[in-house]
């Protein structure tokens, strides 16, 4: 694209971009400097100033407190992400390559599940988990995340498989490949980028989830978001610990975002731009 603009306009452009970048980074700056400060040095009037020396002990303390929650979140996110990706892939395959009468209606009805506020299903979910003895533990949370993850994983895979040319699947059919062979020989080998997008999206969502963590998990199974909320809750908190905890809770998803940003954005766009 031809952008014929004078040096004056360019200067304004960069000034605006740098200004906004500083605004967006300001919370991160405050978090990092507070986390590294000595608790005694944290005062409201010097909150913006750099720590006099790096104090790592807040991280040790935050790790000690959050490690069990982080472990829960990791187990939960890995299992639920795995299961919902597999199901999403198969569903997406059916809905893009084995269309049946009314498949669009079925797909639309499935998508509805990702837009509901989860408060509307929370009480029956709570009751159901209690009655099947899955309330309070990680398996119950896995079940919830897998079921309510189906719409988005199905959506991403369906859109992804729609781009695989029909010529490929048709020639496989002529060679006598049935439903499962076509999936394992043609579709699955081409699915890796789709899986990366879905893994990243689901892992981030599950790692960041809070409502189910606080309502459906007993203390021993609570995820990291609940642990952090408790660490930071209450009055008269020493801010170095919550800030160190925030960094720990943010680190896995932030790393994924920085390293695999391209795929992260694809997942982001998949959830909004029409199915």
């Amino acid at each position, binding site marked *: 694209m031809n952008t014929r603009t004078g040096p004056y306009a360019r200067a304004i452009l960069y000034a605006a971009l740098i200004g906004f970048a500083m*605004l967006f980074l300001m919370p991160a700056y405050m978090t990092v400097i507070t986390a590294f400060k000595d608790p005694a040095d944290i005062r409201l009037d010097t909150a913006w100033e750099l720590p006099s020396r790096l104090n790592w002990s807040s991280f040790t303390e935050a790790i000690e407190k959050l490690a069990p929650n982080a472990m829960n979140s990791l187990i939960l996110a890995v299992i639920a992400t795995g299961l919902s990706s597999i199901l999403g892939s198969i*569903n997406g395959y059916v809905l893009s390559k084995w269309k049946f009468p009314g498949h669009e209606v079925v797909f639309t009805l499935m998508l509805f599940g990702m837009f*509901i506020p989860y408060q*509307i*299903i929370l009480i029956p979910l709570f009751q159901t988990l209690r009655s099947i003895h899955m309330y309070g533990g990680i398996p119950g949370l896995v079940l919830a995340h897998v079921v309510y993850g189906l719409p988005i994983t199905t959506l991403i895979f369906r859109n992804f498989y729609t781009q695989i040319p029909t010529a490929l699947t048709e020639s496989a059919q002529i060679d006598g490949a049935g439903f499962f062979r076509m999936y394992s020989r043609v579709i699955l080998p081409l699915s890796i980028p789709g899986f990366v997008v879905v893994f990243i999206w689901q892992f981030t969502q599950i790692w960041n989830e*809070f409502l189910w963590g606080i309502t459906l998990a007993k203390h021993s199974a609570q995820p990291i978001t609940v642990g952090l909320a408790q660490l930071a809750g209450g009055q008269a908190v020493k801010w170095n610990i919550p800030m160190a905890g925030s960094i720990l*809770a943010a680190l896995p998803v932030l790393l994924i975002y920085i390293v695999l940003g391209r795929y992260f954005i694809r997942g982001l*766009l998949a959830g909004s731009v029409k199915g």
Partner: protein
Amino acid sequence: MRRDQLIAIAVLLPSLILLAVFVYGFIGQTFYISLTNWGDHAALAENPEYEVVGFRNYRELFTGFLHSRFRQGLVNALFYTVLLVGGAIGLGLLLAILLDRQPRAEGLFRTIFLYPMSLSFIVTGTIWRWLLTPRGGINSLPKYVGLPQGEFLWMSSRQQILRFDWQSLPALTAFLVAAVLIVLAVQAWQANRKRRSIAVCIPALTLIIWAIFGSRFLPRFLPYPELHGFNLATIGIIIAAIWQYAGYTMALYIAGLRGIPVHLHEVAQLDGVNEIQYYLKIAIPILKPITFSAIIILAHISLKMFALIFAMAGSDNAATGHPSVLMYLTTFRGNKFALGAAIAVVLFLFVAVFIIPYLIHSYRERRAQ
């Protein structure tokens, strides 16, 4: 062929059954629970006893004098939604246009604007609560340029503006709907569809006349005036939410701007259209479908702001309250399951108003392809 088609449906079936039960079945069950008195006694028993009492819980929520907090929560939800949608779309569009000018280090800037999106609401909330400490954080920044310290109390503020009496809500709603209809009528008129324009004007005028003359004959909801309005305590939470979601709308708009054919821009330049006019007159109208999606997605996120409010203001802060927070408190702290279910149903209906037309629209578009 037929056999494989049957296998395909059989493979899909478990997911469909799960969603039928966990989404549609559970929504129905929550609606049913909202019509009962579950929570009046022994709520947490394995098989709680309760009976259907009709719409009592809804009547209580909207007109019971104990539940003004729910009503303020609804008003808050409206302001959370409008300001988050407006703020994130405005800022996101601006950032997208800046990046569309192809600056150096575009990728770096994009990463910086989008990283908040990867964070949990709990992380965002914890950090912003520290930034918005009344006697420190953002409030102390003016000192560094020689200005007096900020005085705003953020989430502890008890100021309220744009106050109105709950009793006048039906009339206000009628005015609002009428205003939307009049805008539609003007658009239809300009598009030379005069009949349609007149057809839209008639209900608009009826509503206005009813609001002015008819609404005073409504039964009194409450024995005394109950004032609600925009709680300034919510501003900090809205700012944090915009910080988190502006990058998201930016990503949507960047994808949209990339999709505009280059020659359109070139033709515009040859015609002497300057750059600002290009964005205002050509690009933004082309991006209308994206704006539409962004409004839907953001509105639906704002109605799910539970975790952010929880982390920034706590669940007990009435000034920043939201139906989603109140549903949690009522159900899981107060054990009033039926009342909690009724709050959830109200919240759900507000989301459904946005989402169902959106899903129908995208369904039609897929069919048309």
